[in-house]
């Protein structure tokens, strides 16, 4: 029996070595994304979310060291550990073909001196996709003449559709969407979320990395909350949005405009200078001396907190 297609991240850690400092961008992350599911990885900017996306694709700069494993188990192909796989394997069999990236700020991820068409056609050709660029563009909601524009001429929505089309050129099974909504207005965010949902419903797996909880709510089946390089909780979306158990998750939700705009007091710590124990402790109203020990994930919802909320009603 072939195992269910999934991405299984086990103990993933990423550190950047700078002269005189070590930055812990991701620490001991555990989660999984299954076929047909959308998992949202949420957190404030600078908590290490985007590093996770680059780590899974092997795109980190040379001064990064990665530990742990990220098993990609899809279809009949033998499982691949994205962390241990050599660059050649990643370049030839993983990126674009099995894992597609919908990048942050799409226009910046297109080469400025070439038209959208040139880049889309090139991706189709190199990934062995017989489709024509025009057909793919129309499916992504673009008019064929739009493809003849240069990246700086594309509107935010058009650029988003172009990178979506390029990301799907190699028919990847897992889509990593890294802050796909930053800089887009509400209707475009909604359209992008609908598109991601459709991809998941087609049987792909979607990992949505975002700080936009409203966007996450539109598509996510599960929500993983990240804070100061660690994943604090992984819960089903329904539970997360109605009765979050981690105090930080509750804080994030309470900060939403629709829920009272109550921002969490204080600032997140610097990733180069993380405290011992629970990193959220200084900002947490429920913190006690217990919190100086690192909390282990507990229970079915996997919440890393010594004092999880039992019934935090949405305000």
């Amino acid at each position: 029996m072939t195992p269910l297609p999934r991405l299984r991240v086990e103990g993933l850690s990423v550190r950047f070595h700078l002269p005189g400092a070590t930055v812990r961008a991701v620490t001991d992350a555990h989660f999984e994304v299954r076929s047909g599911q959308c998992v949202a990885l949420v957190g404030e900017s600078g908590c290490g979310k985007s590093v996770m996306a680059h780590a899974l694709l092997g795109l980190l700069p040379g001064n990064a060291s990665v530990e742990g494993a990220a098993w990609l188990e899809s279809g009949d192909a033998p499982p691949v550990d994205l962390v241990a796989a050599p660059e050649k394997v990643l370049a030839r069999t993983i990126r674009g073909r099995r894992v597609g990236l919908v990048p942050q700020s799409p226009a910046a991820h297109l080469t400025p001196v070439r038209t959208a068409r040139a880049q889309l056609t090139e991706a189709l050709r190199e990934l062995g996709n017989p489709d024509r660029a025009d057909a793919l563009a129309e499916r992504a909601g673009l008019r064929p003449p739009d493809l003849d524009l240069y990246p700086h001429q594309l509107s935010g929505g058009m650029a988003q559709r172009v990178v979506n089309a390029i990301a799907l050129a190699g028919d990847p099974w897992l889509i990593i969407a890294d802050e796909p909504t930053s800089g887009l207005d509400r209707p475009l965010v909604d359209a992008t979320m609908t598109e991601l949902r459709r991809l998941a419903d087609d049987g792909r797996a979607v990992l949505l990395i975002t700080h936009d909880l409203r966007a996450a709510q539109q598509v996510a089946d599960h929500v993983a909350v990240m804070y100061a390089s660690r994943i604090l909780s992984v819960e089903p979306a329904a539970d997360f949005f109605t009765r979050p158990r981690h105090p930080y998750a509750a804080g994030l939700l309470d900060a939403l405009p629709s829920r009272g705009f109550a921002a969490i007091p204080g600032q997140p710590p610097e990733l180069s200078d993380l405290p011992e124990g629970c990193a959220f402790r200084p900002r947490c109203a429920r913190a006690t001396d217990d919190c100086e020990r690192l909390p282990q994930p507990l229970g079915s919802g996997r919440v890393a907190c010594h004092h999880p909320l039992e019934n935090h009603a949405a305000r």
Partner: protein
Amino acid sequence: MTRALGRMAAWRLAFTAPLLLVVTLGMFVLAKASPFDPVRQYLGDRAVTTSPEIARRIRANWGLDRPLAEQYLTWLGNLLRGDLGESRSMHRPVAELIGERLGWTLLAVGCATVVMLAGSLVLGALAAWRRGSWADRLISGTAYANEAAPVFWTALIVIWIFAVKLRWLPPGGLTDAASGTVAPADVLRHMILPVAVLAFSQSSWLVLFVRESLITTLREDFVIGARARGLRERTVVVRHALRSALLPFVTLLGARVPELVTGAILVETVFSWPGVASASVQAALAADFPLLAALTLLATLAVVAGNLLADTAYVIADPRVRVLGVS
């Protein structure tokens, strides 16, 4: 695009006319301040025996007794009409001399530029792509060393190795001394060393520039984006990183014309190549003002043309400038 190009060309040309005027004025003032007496120089050994009366008549004939401003305007007028005067050392019209030699300089410099561009692109890209490898260390090390080595010294080393020790190629000249005609194969053999030295000496900054620029570009989002799409490494480096990295390079290339002229002067002299650049040295050694002035003006024009070419290339190459116009 045409509008942006036109605006830029007009701006350049508007700057060029006063510039050339300043350069001619500067040369004229320097020539007048010079202790060399053109009449005495013209007469040579006869100067001692020539009567002051004859010297005075030559002076009047050349207009040297007129006021300075008038002399300058006459000279300028002649230049504008294409009358570059007569070379005092070679006793031939300057225009004819330049016409004869310019082709050889353009041939050598043109070939050197092509070799330099191709070589530097490949080597610079290789060094950036395999940054930190032995190939990178060898390429950047050689480029740094090359930067520090005077081109005439490099040329002498090359002559000693390839012409004196190995006897593969001739040490200089356009053709073999024995041959009376200019055979293409012969010229080609004589061209290899000067072209190679000129290309090599000019390539170091370019190699380092391509390397630096590509290293920066390889970290850019769009290169990471291209890599994330699963494109082949070659495609990522050549069609995404290199293509974007080369944009500033077209402008810099045009701005390097002065260095190219300097290199051509030294290389043509070492290899006795009969071009205009080595003629400037001969003119200088003979204090031949008309020839030297014409060549200096020619070089200035080349610099201005280089800048114009660079701007044009930039407008054509960069879609962002093309649409927004020159700011």
